[in-house]
């Protein structure tokens, strides 16, 4: 086991000074897990608020503005309400799987967060196959949706789950291949090293044409993988009720809901790390102050999140055949060509380096 927990050296040293090694490392892991949970539960709630504010802005409304200043506490209040709500269930559901499904979704979403380098120091798990780990984890999340849809014993939920399965499996290919295109140019799967490479210019500049194509494909496929509009056939309200989580209520519904927003954050964070230099500042303007990396990372990620929300309120929903045609007839061939193009550019040394 070679876990590099490099969040803050001081806490690390302090823990190891007061406890024996084994207990200290367990205590450290638990501490980091709790910190991540706390940060991202709150961050997820604020993403929900952001979505509502953006939606309101696009529709010329004000949005939530009653709870707290400028509605800032609205989603906190919503979360409290969801915690206190009754957990309903159907009698003829498969109880075990029905209760298990939300945890699949939320656990995989939170696990993926561990590998992101928020700054040089702030990274929980710097694994040498970071990108592959992200893909592996995200491929498990869909199981939760499938199980939830099937075990609620509800036709709408089942149809929603089937659609989700088809959609996620198809678009995973595009996400994977567009990430692979960027791995070609960065030459590493480790996220911290991918950021290191970008000190000579962000990868979207280094790889110019194929990188821009890869970024576009990544954003489209990423939006589809998180089941967000315009690819939200999974929970198309007008057709399926609430889709796969029709039968869920209270906190279990909140897990699905939170996971969707955390997944959106993850897609944006992958985009930031692979294309826009992660925690690196533009032109290295704050290179002397390393902790500002968090600011740059979160800033870039939020811009990409905003882009995904922009999609949501701009495009109408696709039909299922249009969705599959887009993936298998357009994105996938384009992606394969793009990989060859990127390989050529890396081979002939045509990348732009500063």
């Amino acid at each position, binding site marked *: 086991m070679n876990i590099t927990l490099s969040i803050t050296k001081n806490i690390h040293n302090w823990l190891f000074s007061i406890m024996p090694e084994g207990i200290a490392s367990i205590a450290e892991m638990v501490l980091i897990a709790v910190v991540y949970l706390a940060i991202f539960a709150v961050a997820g709630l604020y993403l929900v608020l952001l979505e509502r504010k953006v939606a309101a802005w696009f529709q010329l409304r004000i949005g939530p503005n009653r709870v707290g200043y400028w509605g800032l506490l609205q989603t906190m209040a919503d979360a409290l309400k969801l915690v206190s709500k009754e957990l309903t269930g159907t009698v003829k559901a*498969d109880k075990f799987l029905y209760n298990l499904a939300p945890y699949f979704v939320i656990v995989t979403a939170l696990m993926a967060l561990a590998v992101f380098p928020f700054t040089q120091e702030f990274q929980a798990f710097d694994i040498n196959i970071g990108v592959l780990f992200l893909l592996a984890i995200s491929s*498990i999340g869909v199981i939760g949706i499938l199980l939830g849809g099937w075990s609620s014993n509800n036709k709408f939920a089942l149809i929603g789950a089937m659609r989700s399965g088809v959609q996620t499996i198809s678009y995973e290919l595009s996400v994977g291949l567009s990430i692979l295109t960027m791995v070609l140019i960065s030459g590493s799967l480790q996220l911290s090293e991918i950021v290191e490479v970008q000190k000579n210019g962000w990868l979207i500049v280094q790889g110019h044409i194929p990188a821009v194509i890869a970024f576009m494909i990544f954003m489209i496929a990423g939006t589809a993988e998180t089941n967000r509009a315009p690819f939200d056939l999974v929970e198309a309200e007008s057709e399926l009720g609430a889709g796969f989580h029709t039968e869920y209520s209270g906190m279990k519904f909140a897990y699905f809901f939170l996971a969707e927003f955390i997944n959106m954050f993850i897609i944006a964070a992958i985009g930031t790390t692979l294309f826009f230099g992660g925690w690196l500042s533009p032109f290295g303007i704050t290179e002397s102050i390393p902790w500002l990396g968090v600011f740059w990372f979160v800033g870039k990620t939020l811009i990409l999140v905003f882009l995904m929300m922009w999609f949501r309120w701009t495009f109408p929903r696709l039909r299922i055949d249009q969705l599959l045609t887009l993936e298998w007839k357009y994105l996938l061939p384009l992606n394969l060509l793009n990989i060859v193009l990127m390989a050529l550019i890396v081979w002939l040394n045509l990348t732009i380096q500063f």
Partner: protein
Amino acid sequence: MERIIFYILALIIIFFAIASVSSKKMLRSVVYLLFVLCGISGLYFLIDYNFLAAIQLTVYAGGVIVLLIFSVMLVHHIEMELELAKVSKRILIAVASLLGLGVFLTTIYSYEFIVVENSITTTTEDIGFGLLSYEAGGFILPFEVISILLLASMIGAIIIAKGTKITNKNNDSL
């Protein structure tokens, strides 16, 4: 600590493997199988073989299990339960399993395992070079053979999926 994690993982694997074969509900056994596969990938993580662990998660947990769940969802209603096999069959299977277990245990206990002290993490780069090298110890031939196998199975899948259309056309032209 590694020992404790190993035993926890081993317990998880054994418990869910038994649960998987003894559950009467089909989708539940698929989910138990998923836990077994996740436990195995945990073992790979434990011996620092990250690449294989991630591949295990992607291919088995993310690919095979999702396909299994799909096929179960398509054919299986939620209230259906699997039937118990006949007594004679059960005895036969028990004997066969015990035989297999015996072979495994004798092999494991008669082989002297060498404890390797070094803990070198195999990087993806090494694996890539290994797969593409055509010198001694390289794996270029199996790599290419597998790619042909994959192509063949893909074509086969397309033929099966489009079966009637293609064969009908051929019959017409003949």
